[in-house]
């Protein structure tokens, strides 16, 4: 089994990495290339960039920073946000992204996942899924950055994404996102039955949360604020995980 991965997530708006509070007050954290280099040095195993204001107009800006990151980074990275066609994916991969994340567009048109898997190989296709638990119906899929509820069962959708050709799942618990209370372990246990790798997202607040998520079936753990703010440096986290028997890249 490959090493468990530690994955910082960076939100990008108009070519800058930002930290957002409900999309209202955005704080500029630096350029994608600068932050990528910092995380590379710090021992991150992979990076995820989410373009939170993707539009047709800023496509050129996005390709430029993706190309810059690819040149400087010595670890893999995924780019997502507003990817709505195989052509969008092709442009990002050509600019140097290792994987492309799809979310809302895949839900609206599931064949997109298959088209991308056939064109680029399924290892390049990450299906990002935002979910929220309904007390009666279980976990439901939310779209458009978590703003649009659907009737879709999250667990069924994950299996369907696997069938469609997704190579990896990036699963965000909206119930936990931003709470710092820990990942949704029940959700991870369900999702880790899939035969493709699972990145857990939403809820990381301290070292033990990462350990729990990895022990409950996640292949990789994602967080933003904890890493950006230096609250939990990646080397500290890796040492902690090693002390508890979880193997990461050293």
């Amino acid at each position, binding site marked *: *089994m*490959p*090493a468990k*991965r530690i994955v910082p997530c960076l939100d990008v708006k108009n070519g800058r990495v930002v930290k957002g509070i409900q999309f209202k007050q955005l704080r500029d954290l630096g350029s994608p290339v600068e932050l990528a280099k910092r995380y*590379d040095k710090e021992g991150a*195993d992979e990076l995820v960039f989410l373009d939170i204001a993707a539009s047709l107009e800023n496509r050129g800006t996005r390709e430029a920073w993706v*190309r810059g990151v*690819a*040149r*400087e*980074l*010595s*670890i*893999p990275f995924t780019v997502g946000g507003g990817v709505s066609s195989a052509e969008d994916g092709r442009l990002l*991969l*050509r*600019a*140097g*992204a*290792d994987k492309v994340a799809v979310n809302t567009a895949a839900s609206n048109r599931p064949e997109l996942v298959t088209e991308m898997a056939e064109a*680029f*190989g*399924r*290892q*390049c296709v990450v299906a990002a899924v935002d979910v929220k638990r309904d007390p009666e119906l279980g976990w439901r899929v939310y779209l458009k950055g978590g703003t649009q509820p659907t009737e879709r069962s999250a667990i069924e959708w994950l299996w369907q994404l696997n069938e469609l050709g997704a*190579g*990896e799942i990036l699963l965000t618990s909206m119930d936990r996102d931003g709470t710092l209370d820990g990942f949704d372990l029940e959700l991870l246990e369900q999702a880790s039955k899939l*035969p*493709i*790798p699972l990145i857990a997202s939403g809820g990381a607040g301290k070292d033990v949360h990462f350990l729990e998520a990895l022990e409950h079936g996640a*292949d*990789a753990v994602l967080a933003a604020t904890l890493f950006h703010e230096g609250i939990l440096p990646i080397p500290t986290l890796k040492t902690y995980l090693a002390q508890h028997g979880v193997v*990461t*890249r*050293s």
Partner: protein
Amino acid sequence: MLTLIDYDAGNLASLEGALERLGLPYRLAQGPDEAGEDGPLVLPGVGHFESAKRSLVQRGWWRELPGMVASGRPLLGICLGLQLLAEGSEEAPREDGLGLLPGVVRRLGPGVKVPHMGWSQVTLNHAHPAFGNPTGGWLYFVHSYALEANEGTILTAHHGRDFAAVEARGRTLGFQPHPEKSGPLGLLLLQSALAWMGATRETTCN
């Protein structure tokens, strides 16, 4: 000078970045006529065996590469590039490989997640003059098929079973992991491989 084979089946940006960081000048060649007379050839590749092969055939590489290797040009295949250099692959059972590296590429699994995606440790299988002993080091892999370990295997990795992570025959080398995506160790192995193949650093006049 080093020649990077550009055939629309690879993510060249990262590899170009790595070569720049190593200070190794290179040219991009879409066809063998753009590959110069000497210096190492690098065959990257991601995607499907059959479509990559088709693209190499269309651009004339498939026909020319064996002769270029026979005349002494060192060749490095990376990821799907390695697989194309082998005798064949289960991914495209009706197609031959280039046969420049020994063995056949088979699907990973069952019993493990496929694709094998992430960081795995390598183990020295046979000493090779290009490399030290990186046993225990971590490299980044993304693949669903792998070359069976054989007599030409320098480093192995494990995912469900042992497979060839670095393979060599004569001056032809293959990397299953992405050295350009594998942190400092990946860069070191890439540098060692290319130095052994005869790539030279840029010289300056100061």
